């Protein structure tokens, strides 16, 4: 899809998805923080965005701190990884990757006309799920996005968020988790 066609809500979810990719200078750039700033301001959140920008944007040391934190939270860590970003870990009994909930997610993708681009990709990664919501919104499939949130995403994201917050005080991820929560929680 081309950028020009992307609608505002979809773009917001692409943004959230991007935020949980591995921190690299290439995307932790001025326009990223401009947008973060703008969202945070619109939401009247405490203005952490400025602090985050100063800490992590074009700042080698800050970037490394974020990379280490990302590794520790989501990849591998000592003593133990805090919160693998996969729904199976929270919803399926064995806590392995690619459990039944991941299979469900994959089927949901397929039924809505999307396939993972990599043959070996694991379907229920947080980034993929947020990207998928964006794709649905991009196509104007609001009800389907709501269904996905309702039948799947909201079941695990709060558990995931809780685990991250119990093991980390990092402001960047705190802010982003808060935003994901805001943009995915059920509304009356």
């Amino acid at each position: 899809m081309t950028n020009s066609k992307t609608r505002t809500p979809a773009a917001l979810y692409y943004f959230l998805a991007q935020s949980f990719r591995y921190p690299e200078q290439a995307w932790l750039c001025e326009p990223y923080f401009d947008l973060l700033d703008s969202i945070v301001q619109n939401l009247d959140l405490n203005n952490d965005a400025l602090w985050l920008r100063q800490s992590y944007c074009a700042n080698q040391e800050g970037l490394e701190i974020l990379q280490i934190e990302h590794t520790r939270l989501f990849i591998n860590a000592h003593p133990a990884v805090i919160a693998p970003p996969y729904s199976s870990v929270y919803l399926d009994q064995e806590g392995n990757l690619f459990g039944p909930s991941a299979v469900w997610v994959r089927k949901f993708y397929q039924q809505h006309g999307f396939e993972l681009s990599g043959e070996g990709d694991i379907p229920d990664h947080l980034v993929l799920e947020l990207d998928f919501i964006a794709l649905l919104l991009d196509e104007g499939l609001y009800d389907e996005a709501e269904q996905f949130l309702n039948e799947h995403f909201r079941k695990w994201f709060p558990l995931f968020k809780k685990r991250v917050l119990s093991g980390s005080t990092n402001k960047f991820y705190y802010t982003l988790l808060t935003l994901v929560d805001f943009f995915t929680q059920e509304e009356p």
Partner: protein
Amino acid sequence: MAFQMTRRSFLQASATAALTTALSGWLASGAKAQSGFVKKPFTAPGSFGNTTTVTGGICEMCFWRCQLVGKLRDGKLVKLEGNPKSVDNGASLCARGNAGVKLLYDQDRLKFPLKNVGKRGAPVWKKISWDEALDECAARLQGVIKNNGPQGIAIFPHGASATYPMHYFEHVVGTPNNSEASFFQCRGPRDIAYINTFGVEAGESVDMPNAKAILLIGTHIGENIHVSQVKQYLKGLENGAKLIVVDPRFSASAAKADIWVQIKPGTDSAFLLAIMNYLVKKGAYDKAYVQKNGEGFDKFAKAIAHAELEWAAKICDVSAAQIKEVADLLAKSAPHVSVHPGRHVTWYGNDFQRERALACLTGLLGAIGVKGGFVKAKGPKLGKVAWPDIGVEHAEQFALHKMAEKHKFSPPGTPTEMLRNTAISGKPYSIKACVIWGQNPIQTIPGQQETIKMLQQMDFVLVVDLMPTDITMYADILLPELSYLERYDIVKTGVQWDFNDKHQQYIAPRMPLVSQVSADHQRKDSVWITNELAKRLGHAKHIPAPSAEAMVDKILAAANLTLAQIKKEDGIHLQPGSNPYGAVYPIKFFNEDLAEAGYSGAPNYTPVPEPPQGFARLVYGRVPVHTFNRTMNNVWLNAEIPENPIWLSEETAHKLGLKSGDKVNLVNQDGVVSANAVTLKVTQGIRKDTIFTAHGYGTKNPAMTNAVNKGFDEQSLITNPAVDPETGAHGMRTSFVRIMKDGKILNIPS
């Protein structure tokens, strides 16, 4: 934080100029990554989903290499089964083989190259790119080579994937300092003893299906599972073979035995010498075979002449009548006797001679090349992919055991104890880098504190593995490897499991069952990793195969095969085999080379230290659902046998007021306390002077979330390993322990 608005109102308001500008600015910046999706119209799957069968898998949940097929549903591996075309394991897999699915999707697996920005032992990991990781490895290895020479690098490999890098470091880089766990903490004394008796490696080459008697010394088939071997063993028993099991413990094999010799640990060689002496004196050996093929028989007979039944009975704490019973049964069943060479044989530091005794006994019985005896299968011939030997001469000069003129019958590599001592002391030279590939030296090597000391004095530690095992905590750079289900690797060859069946040979290369690439990881195979290191260390021109796939194809080419062809043949190429019987080996009953080198030319018995008052000897073994520490984090296998109970004799338990189910620790002779209290198993099935547990438990790295602190690591208690004089291999059933309950230490009554 409390929101001032709802999502809906936010989205409605999101047309605000500022946000829109920011959004389009961000989108235009190109900072958004490609989404991980492609569009594809939905087609409803049939009733089996999109299940496909992929062939070409070779199991590596242990190292027996059963042939597999995988069932894939929509890209997810849902089940592993034995390859129905297999003439080895057939359609069967053991529990571990089945549980491979859970290794593939283990959430704790290593995913990306990691750099330790904390300390060794207390790492802080940062994900880095492969380029960064490899550049750093190369620069730091190069630094050590420059300052200390290639011998300044030590390697600790284990498993099929470690072979290629191991050869690179030995043959091209030129270090002799290779400590293979499979030799120095496992099979080394066996293989070298058989080579120095028959001229061929032992393997587990006994024709059990056709045996009239099977002799197992400590081997506990049933708890130790290798599928085709278990089939051979059970077929033999089914066919009426008499089973003799020599073990201080009522093992799974002892439970099936016709004769169970509840021997005192450490004395097996005395037992074997007495049997051989008895057979020789009685003339109850295969005289024709011995006369024709035996070397040094008279010297041998003389050297063991002291080993009377009564002598051994006293040492072994069994009756002379029972030893005689065993000897008579062996003689009566000869030559159709499977004298099993064992597998993990690094027990007491007198193990080479015990293995020599087993080989000599096999020879005395004429049990070579005949039904039921020691028979080597005639497997297919394949090609080789090898690094050139440009560094070997250098390596030889710095081989520690050669410099010290010790362990003259060492298996390939350098005895671990010498290597480690050298690294710690810096004498006779410094060892400053360490490459650990698929091995977990914290649990494979006794003397953990020394191992940690060795690691701490290194300038650089590289670890390559699948899982965050205990050793990975000490890495500076930690690289993630593809598992056996995701890579090309070795070519498994062999013949049908029962020599009575039609003679067939098989060739089965390991092929990936699932995709190697995934957005979720950047694991690589060892050929790629090694080649990338070699390029950076200036050895690009020596690379023998550009990829793992190409390596396998080269190996297959010698048999006029290709991967593509074998894929068409469902992963296994079958070809006519030949009759393995009739082979004749010369038997060095007395080995002059050994004698010349200052060792005993005839198999001998060296007594081992006795447990001090109040202690029992700690011995260890396996459980059928685990392969050491490698499988401990697997959810299915972990659920099967999550911890390692401590076996204690009923009499002792009674005296100490202990009962089954009590939670106890062990304390060794040096005061080391086992880390976690585990369940006590009170049983008549163990000697009073012996305590048994299973190996591989007690993972310390919390990153192994299922395994951590389950059971205890008996290796932590083995602080006084012995070293086998001939081979330099470790002896690890050397620890003495007492029981600790509720913080109170209890003496073991004698």
